[in-house]
């Protein structure tokens, strides 16, 4: 429980309507989208309307040493917004204005509560695009996706969130407001704090304004689906496309377990015995797209695909994508609990990683379906389980450990796009060693010495 004067001060700054204190409201901020994670009730939820108010809240928290948990839409998959120590949940959703779209500099300036799709709705009217597209584009906030450095389907060609963040305004743990970066393409003045705060998961400061880079929207696109009866052939096809100097906007893979589940769910016409399906989309100028689509088709055939389909129009394209879009929902309906990981390996190691995951599933008698962004090496091994089954959950945790070990041993990383949060904190030293974890801690303590900002995430206080 917070002292009465803390609540009074918060109400004074924000107005009573922006301070939630009733049990029934607080309990709805105790969780996020992360599966099988213990929930914690915050003591208060506040929704600031300006950077100044954020700064005031941070100062109050500092005076009384109360932890602050920034929150966008709460769709992250690493427990990043769960207020494990109670305290203040800082909901950024009322800071939801698109401040400016600058067509000359190809930038947009937004507040952190803007939903990614809302920005894109605005800029597509001008023939522009903000490329990062996590599966949650219609719900996730700009602040949350910058803080997780979200990826998505277009990572291979267009990169991820960090490639589009040019400037930020942040409130530091001491309440100071600073701006870093801006609208210039080039900027080497001082350390690259914009990069540091991108993916910091709210542990270093509160982002209150973001300048993003926009690009001209591609003129057209074309989708190609290929079925493989052998994983290695699919892996070679991926490598071969890239070796032929074609960079598709998306290059997705689904394994046999995923194909079977999806096919039951939507009847998209995928062969149930296929070992892998690749879904490729090329985009750009019409002439280039036509040429690349034909090349991709040839490569897929040469690499031994048993069936290749090119979508002739938007309807056919939607049909090809139906299976991929339905992957997570279909899997999620199969068992009550869906543990979605995002271990990532170099592109060339995709077949090895898929095989490793299959071995792990067999060893622990678990149902693991894998799909993901093959083009950028980011796989989503998805464990279908039931949180209420204690014995099975033990095996799930062992399997998750082994999946991470496999990814790291193949030269990959723990997390490609979902972040560390609480969920992957204990594995950090596997990737960086003790010294690496210590360096992270030093950065955290330099900016937030009292662990007020999203404590209990990424780095543990010793």
């Amino acid at each position, binding site marked *: 429980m917070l002292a009465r004067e803390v609540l009074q001060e918060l109400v004074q700054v924000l107005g009573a309507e922006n301070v*939630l204190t*009733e*049990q*029934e*409201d607080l*309990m*709805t*901020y*105790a*969780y*996020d*989208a*992360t*599966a099988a994670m213990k929930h914690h009730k915050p003591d208060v939820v506040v*929704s600031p309307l300006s950077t100044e108010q954020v700064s005031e809240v941070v100062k109050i928290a500092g005076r009384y040493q109360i932890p602050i948990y920034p929150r966008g*839409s*709460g*769709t992250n998959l690493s427990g990043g917004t769960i207020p494990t120590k109670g305290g203040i949940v800082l*909901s950024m*959703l*009322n800071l*939801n204005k698109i401040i400016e779209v600058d067509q000359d500099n190809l930038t947009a300036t937004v507040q952190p*509560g803007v939903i990614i*799709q809302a920005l894109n709705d605005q800029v597509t009217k001008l023939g522009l695009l903000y490329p990062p597209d996590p599966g*949650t584009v*219609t*719900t996730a906030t700009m602040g949350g996706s910058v803080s997780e450095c979200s990826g998505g389907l277009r990572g291979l060609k267009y990169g991820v969130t960090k490639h589009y963040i040019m400037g930020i305004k942040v409130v530091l743990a001491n309440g100071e407001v600073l701006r870093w970066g801006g609208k210039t393409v080039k900027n080497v003045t001082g350390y690259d704090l914009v990069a540091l705060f991108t993916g910091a998961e709210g542990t270093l400061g509160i982002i209150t304004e973001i300048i993003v880079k926009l690009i001209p929207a591609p003129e057209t696109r074309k989708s190609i689906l290929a079925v493989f009866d052998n994983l290695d052939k699919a892996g070679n096809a991926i490598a071969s496309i890239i070796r032929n100097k074609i960079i598709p906007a998306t290059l997705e893979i689904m394994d046999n377990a995923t194909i079977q589940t999806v096919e039951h769910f939507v009847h998209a016409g995928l062969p149930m015995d296929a070992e892998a399906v690749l879904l490729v989309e090329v985009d750009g100028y019409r002439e280039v797209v036509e040429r690349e689509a034909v090349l991709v088709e040839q490569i897929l055939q040469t690499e031994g695909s048993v069936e290749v389909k090119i979508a002739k129009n938007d309807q056919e394209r939607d049909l090809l994508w139906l299976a991929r879009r339905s992957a*997570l*929902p279909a899997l*999620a*309906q199969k068992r*009550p*609990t*869906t543990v979605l990981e995002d271990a990532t390996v170099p592109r060339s190691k995709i077949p090895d990683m898929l095989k490793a995951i299959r071995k792990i599933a067999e060893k622990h008698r678990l149902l693991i379906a894998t799909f993901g962004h093959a083009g950028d090496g980011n796989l989503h091994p998805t464990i279908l389980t039931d949180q209420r089954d204690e014995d099975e959950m033990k095996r799930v945790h062992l399997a998750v450990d082994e999946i991470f070990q496999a990814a790291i041993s193949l030269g990959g990383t723990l997390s490609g796009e979902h972040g560390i949060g609480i969920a992957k904190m204990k594995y950090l030293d596997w990737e960086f060693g003790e010294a690496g974890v210590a360096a992270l801690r030093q950065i955290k303590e330099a900016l937030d010495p009292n662990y007020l900002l999203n404590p209990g995430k990424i780095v543990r206080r010793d």
Partner: protein
Amino acid sequence: MSVYNSLDSITDELHKCMKCGNCMAVCPIYKETRQEVGVARGKISLVEYLLAGELDMTEGLADRFSLCTTCMACNTNCPCGVRFDKIILAARAEAVRKKGLHSVKKIAFTALKMQRLFDLGMKTGSIFQGVALKHLPHKSDRIARMRFDVGIGTEKVFPMLAKKTLRSEFPEVIRVNNPKMRVAFFTGCMINYFYTDIGRAVVEVLNENDIEVVIPRGQGCCGIPASVNGDVVSARALAKRNLRAFEKLGADALVVACSSGGTAWKHVFAELLENDPEFKVLADKWASKSYDISEFLIHKVPFKKEGLGRVERKVTYHDPCHLNRGQGISREPREILTSIPGVEVIEMKEPGRCCGMAGSFSIVHPDLSVQISDHKTADIALTHTDTVATGCPACRLQLKSGVENAGIEEEVVHTIQILAESYRAGKKN
């Protein structure tokens, strides 16, 4: 097990929810409040905590459960197929079981007060109207504003009470020569008391298609306002009353022209009466032959195309949530509209977005209801049409109130009225 009897009936629905938050993209309430409790995911969590014993059923919790227009948009956008409509109904019924009707006292109290006003109005006619409602002179709709606040604000524009209820305007059986079929018409309260013009159009169109219409006198309220707020006891009594009334007169089919009536006859009566062997049979029987009027005219008895006269209207169609998502009817009204000569249909941006009326929701949360309605009104304005058609009198009220307050020249009618107008125009030639 039905949602009206026990919270246990929805445990499977709760387990399906993976907390992905996709429902945030479409929830009209969440779009306004941006508070987690507004969206399905928030209320699902509250029900889970309640079942786990981490929260008690308090009035505060019942209040949170009132934050839902039951528009079912979240159902449609949920990747896991969670039927949130079931969850919210079960939660509200549980609130009433645990806390009694006083947990929804604001609804009960206000609704009762309004009901009394309206009953009084029917008796005293125009004297009452003058006292409670300030008439707004208008060319097409008889509408008025509340003179004093009975708890719903004075912003909302209301239809004037009809001089005579629909059911007293017609005999119980309206005969035609050589009837093809005998159809029973469930009028619902709004059409009976306020929008008698919709009711007359239904009868006119059915007669025009050689159908004998019966309007059982013994019918009453569909009970949806009670069942959605957890007052299962009242809802059950009303369901039985209606079943008895229709059973007495009998018919080949039953039609409704409001989305709550359709929901009630097709689904809710049978669910409410699942433990009552005698009435469950009746409810199932009538459910299998209940139709929304547009559905009936497209699928059951395709309406006559010859004799349709020209109607010069630019029309945009609003999909009522419980007709569109609730009963899967969205193509049918459009098919009727586009087959009328002279009618030009221009779609608004999100025709399926909730108008924010949701019956008693607009009484409990008048401000939110108006905020939600404002989006709708803005979308309508962009179509530059002269008419909004819809399939539900409750939506008509809300849409009219919206365009009226925004000062937009737009008539709001039920689809069936435009069809009746066309038949009438056809006769003039």
